[in-house]
């Protein structure tokens, strides 16, 4: 195993390019909360590791679009008064991250995006906010909507030599709501719902976040039911915490609660 503790984004990209050219599938470490223990246990077989810890990608800039680097922690998001004012949905989600002070200091939004776990807190919110990922490699930069990057559980549309250097999220001041259902403080989220304007995005019901357009605020439950019932069986999500049938039964309510919060925040 080789580990590169890159001192800059360029160094990280060079290391990635070399590893990818050699046919390896390098692992990029952002906050480390998911991939480091997986490597320690040998579940994540990583020949090459590129750790972004020293790249300085931890800036959070708030303009008309909020830009945050790959190392920006949940705590930075929570502590930023501008995020609180202009992205209350992101603030609310970050404040509810499990794992206490330490994980809020260590976990990152970009890491959560790249892990692409259906049971993530972050994904439905990022999709709801129409966040864009800044995807870079040694040969260039592209931006991609977060929703387009997420392929299936644990898989993203990222080439071996690419990494997500940061996120760009348009401000979304009012009328958002977020509700997550988890079973205990230790539990990962089971169903999440992020409500924005005319849609609600659901996490934990399928392999990737599900955008449910809402023709009317009154018909949230029915819209969710219709959407879930139309989900192909192979996309329906279940894990140790709950079977699909449970998710199917509670998701309309979780969505309705998120929409209700959004109404209150209008």
């Amino acid at each position, binding site marked *: 195993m080789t580990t590169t503790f890159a001192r800059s984004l360029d160094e990280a990209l060079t290391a990635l390019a070399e590893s990818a050219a050699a046919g390896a599938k390098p692992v990029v470490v952002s906050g480390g909360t998911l991939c480091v223990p997986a490597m320690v*246990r*040998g579940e994540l077989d990583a020949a090459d590791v590129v750790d972004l810890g020293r790249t300085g990608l931890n800036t959070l800039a708030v303009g008309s679009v909020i830009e945050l680097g790959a190392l920006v922690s949940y705590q930075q998001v929570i502590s930023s008064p501008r995020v609180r004012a202009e992205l209350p949905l992101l603030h609310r989600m970050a404040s509810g991250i499990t794992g206490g002070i330490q994980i809020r200091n260590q976990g990152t939004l970009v890491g959560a995006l790249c892990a692409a776990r259906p049971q993530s807190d972050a994904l439905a919110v990022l999709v709801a906010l129409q966040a864009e990922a800044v995807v870079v490699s040694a040969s260039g930069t592209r931006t991609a909507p977060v929703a387009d990057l997420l392929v299936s559980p644990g898989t993203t549309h990222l080439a071996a030599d690419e990494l997500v250097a940061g996120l760009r999220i348009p401000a979304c001041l009012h009328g958002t709501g977020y509700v997550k*259902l988890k*079973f*205990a*403080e*230790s*539990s*990962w989220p*089971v169903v999440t719902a992020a409500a924005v304007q005319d849609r609600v995005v659901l996490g934990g019901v399928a392999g990737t976040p599900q955008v449910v357009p809402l023709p009317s605020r009154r018909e949230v*439950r029915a819209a969710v*039911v219709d959407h879930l019932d139309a989900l192909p069986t192979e996309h329906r999500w279940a894990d*140790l*915490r*709950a*079977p699909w049938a*449970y998710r199917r*039964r*509670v998701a*309309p*309510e*979780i969505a309705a609660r998120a929409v209700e919060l959004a109404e209150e925040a209008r």
Partner: protein
Amino acid sequence: MMSAVNAAAADPARWPKRNAFEFAGGTAVFIDDVRPSVLLHMAVVRSSRAHARLRRVDTAQAKAVPGAVRVLEGREASLHLRPLPYQFGDPEMIGGRRIVLEALPVDEVRYVGEPIAIVAAESPRAARRAAAAVVVDYEDLPALLDARAFLADPDPIHVIAENEVVSGAADEVLRTAEHRFGAEFALGRSSTAPIEPRGYVAAWDGTRLTVHATHQQPHQLRTELAEVLDLPAHAIRVVVPNVGGAFGLKMTGPVEEPLVCLLSMLCGRPVKWIESRAECFLGGGREQLHQVEVAHAADGRLLALRDQVVIPVGAEAVSPGWRQAYVSTASFPTAYVVPHLDIRSRVVATNLPPWHSCRGFGKEAPVFVMERILDMVARRTGLDPAEVRRRNLLRPEDLPHRMASGYRMDSADLPTVLNRVLELDGGAEADGVGIAVEVTPEGGGHAGGRSRPGATPTVAAPEAAAVLLRSDGQVEVRTGVTNPGGGNDIALVRLAAGELGLSPDSIRLVQGDTDLCPPGTGNASSRGVAIGGAAVVLAARALADTVSRLGAGPLTESTIAELVVRYGPLEHVREYRPDPPEDLEYRYSYPYFSSGAYVARVDVDRATGRVRLRSLTAVHDCGRVIEPVLVEGQLHGAMAMGVGLALSEESRFDARGVLQASSFKEYLAPRANDLPDFVIGHHETRAPHTLLGAKGAGESGLGGALAAIANAVDDALARCGGREVTSIPLDPPTVLALLPEVDQ
């Protein structure tokens, strides 16, 4: 931010646990901090199959891994090790069968995670790599993974013990009674999960084996190792450093104990094994299935109870875990009078990891079942649940009471603890309220029951203490009681100090060293203070008598030093065993019963099934309270574990017998923001048969909390048309399934 502020309030003499700064300051030594030089590290190769014949275990590639020093599979290990001895007595005493168990299997594996081979290497990483390089060729065999599968095809080959507790004529009463109902209750498999997993450091110097172990029972471990390794006991020293929680996990019996020692003997170097969290989660217990039939009178009195129990204890093992099944059966009908009783249990070996002792030791399951039954009777008679309990509880004048199993309830005041907890409960607004009454047989003696004619009478295991003067002016107390982290050291020091008229600061307590401490049972069954403390008191009294006879006046640092110069250490050793009245008809059983009553208040989210615990209140009776802060601490911890078992903790396995809950992300132990503050009241019914009148704390609270919460959830469900609670844990899918699906 990090600068130390001189806290004017800092007064170590007022800290409940003295000399405890090492814990808050980060210098306390636990097993993984024991690092002898030239240390090797052990890793364990584990079965990936639930039940299979071992065709071949190929260690060649493992031996070639850089850093690997020794690789050992079952066939070779069996040349060096004798079979493992059963812990806690002969299995036949509790209706169990006996098999020969080796530390490493030679022919057959019986669960996913069973050790197949071991590796010693220069680093933990090298050991893990070598372990991963061992190639095992399996031939799969049919596997039995759960109790329901057994019930579907109850092949007696799986039954390792059968127990029955019968009195009266339950059959007839159940057939003819006007009011009767049936129910099936299920408790999930759960674990102990102390934050420090198991760990051992074995060092063989050519003549003597020194084993550092995070352990509850150093003397029992020494005895076991002596037998398995074929060494004289005096050639083995077991030393227990600070223990990071135990809850039953760290009793004698796991196969890694002799294996790490064998590697040290074969390699001639110290060998360490620290269990990983995933390995730690393999072990568990508490899973049971109860099919009950109840007959009761219109006024709520219980008339008859039949319970057909299946208890799947995992693979057969010598460790005491499977014995909890006997205790569960024998503890029926807990705090109540049931004139006609017929409890029959089958203890079933399955292809899951073996049970280990789990806080509660089987006493929690009957509390859950009985408390659910009492609430079901209340529901069916329209009576208040507390009133139904009052009509069925054993009264103080009924005690001592010989239960149908032969267990003897020494003393309690159950109606009073129930009434007091109802007063103490704050009555907060909540969706559901549940109460529970709990009795906890304690003090050791799980194998109660009628004596067979001509059998040797059984007696309590003693605890012993040595008290002696030191030339530095301190008094040394050596005890066979070990401290799993619960703090019995505090009480033992105070007891000795009290007898000798000294400050606790003058007492030096030595625990957990088989070379220094007199034999004892370590820590088990809440005996540490009630029985071990009595031995300390007796030894201290004997020393005080001697000092007084020598005319030395009150003990001080200087008089102690002078006495040592003139007379030596004046060591006094005393043994103590509790003294329940002799009754040759019955085997010795638990000498005292702790008791308590609990009120839980919960909110239930009707749309998701999510339960939130709003309040949990207890009134607890553990006899004389020696150290309130310790008793409350024990109770807090047991209640928190009870909350976890009621709502979230479960060791789940997949259809191939692979553990799914192998980290704290899957095994949901309560965190600080899952729990409310607990409210605790004490009631003292002194134990008539212990020197100090104490009964022991530690296990009680777990079953009471879990039953009260289950009843509270049931109450909340009943108020919105839900079905009755019959299982734990009550995770949201389980609860939601009990709720009517309202049309949205």
